[in-house]
């Protein structure tokens, strides 16, 4: 039984690490995007 729980720790941990990393990355991208977006006129942004 205990072995099962240990396993679960590794498995869940892996998922948590992966999604935390992705979430963190996405968060940093969005916030730096917002910060920089305020400093550049929209005309210079090629996606607008």
């Amino acid at each position, binding site marked *: 039984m205990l072995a099962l729980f240990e396993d679960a720790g590794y498995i869940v941990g892996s998922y948590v*690490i992966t999604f935390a990393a992705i979430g963190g990355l996405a968060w940093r*991208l969005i916030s730096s*995007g917002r910060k920089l977006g*305020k*400093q550049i006129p929209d005309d210079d*942004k090629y996606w607008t």
Partner: protein
Amino acid sequence: MTTLDPADTSSNDAGDDLVAEARRTPATKATRTIGILTAVAMAFTLLWAFVFTGPDVNQGESVRLMLIHLPTIWVAYLSFTVTALASGTYLFTKKHSLGWDRLAGASAEVGVIFVGLTLIVGALWGRLTWGVFWQWDARLTTTALLFVTYIGYLAVRRLDGSHHQRAKRSGVIGLIAVLLIPLVHWSVRIWRSLHQEATILDTDLDADIDGILLTGVLVGVIAFSLLYVWLVLHRTRVMAMEDLLDDRGLDLALAERRAEAGTAARPTGEDA
């Protein structure tokens, strides 16, 4: 990262329009759509991982890790291939458009993160199945080599120089480093080793994997690929803004220096 003083853009009523103009973020309808699709696909992946997939005969519960482990290395391969293609396009087209360089850089950043994740999840999985976090077998060693090589690529991008110098230098590295991917993938075949042989990208087309698990992995691959697109789109746009600010900063510095040179030419009698 250079920044401009926001006070420059709005100090009076007429300036309010300027601020209102400079509000748009890198998010567009396209990225929002992709973002939502990504989130949905990720939810499905989790569903598959923890509800639909049953424990494996040999691997037990740890087989659930396949639903993120395979997609992460797949995204890494994809990223580095895109980096190489973008690098080549920058280097070999006449226009030498920096947009390609930024694509290469953004893609490589995402790739490095995903190789890192692959190694971490792989280590945890290895601890479960083999009892050790690391083995110096062919697949792991070459993957670690891949990781370090692209860290070198990112370091080259941070050397000082113009944007075009950055593009040229990293472009060369990007083209060379991509050759590691076939090495990693077939390392298991070249050196018979501990790590499982390729299951899905096996060129013998003999996928030896349970149906539900296979579907789950494909869902994961789709989810992570969408994530890749979203991340790269955002990152290239942020990079474009950073480059613009770099150029602006340079222009400002030059203008300041010219202004100083102009005032210095006039003699000041203040310390007489």
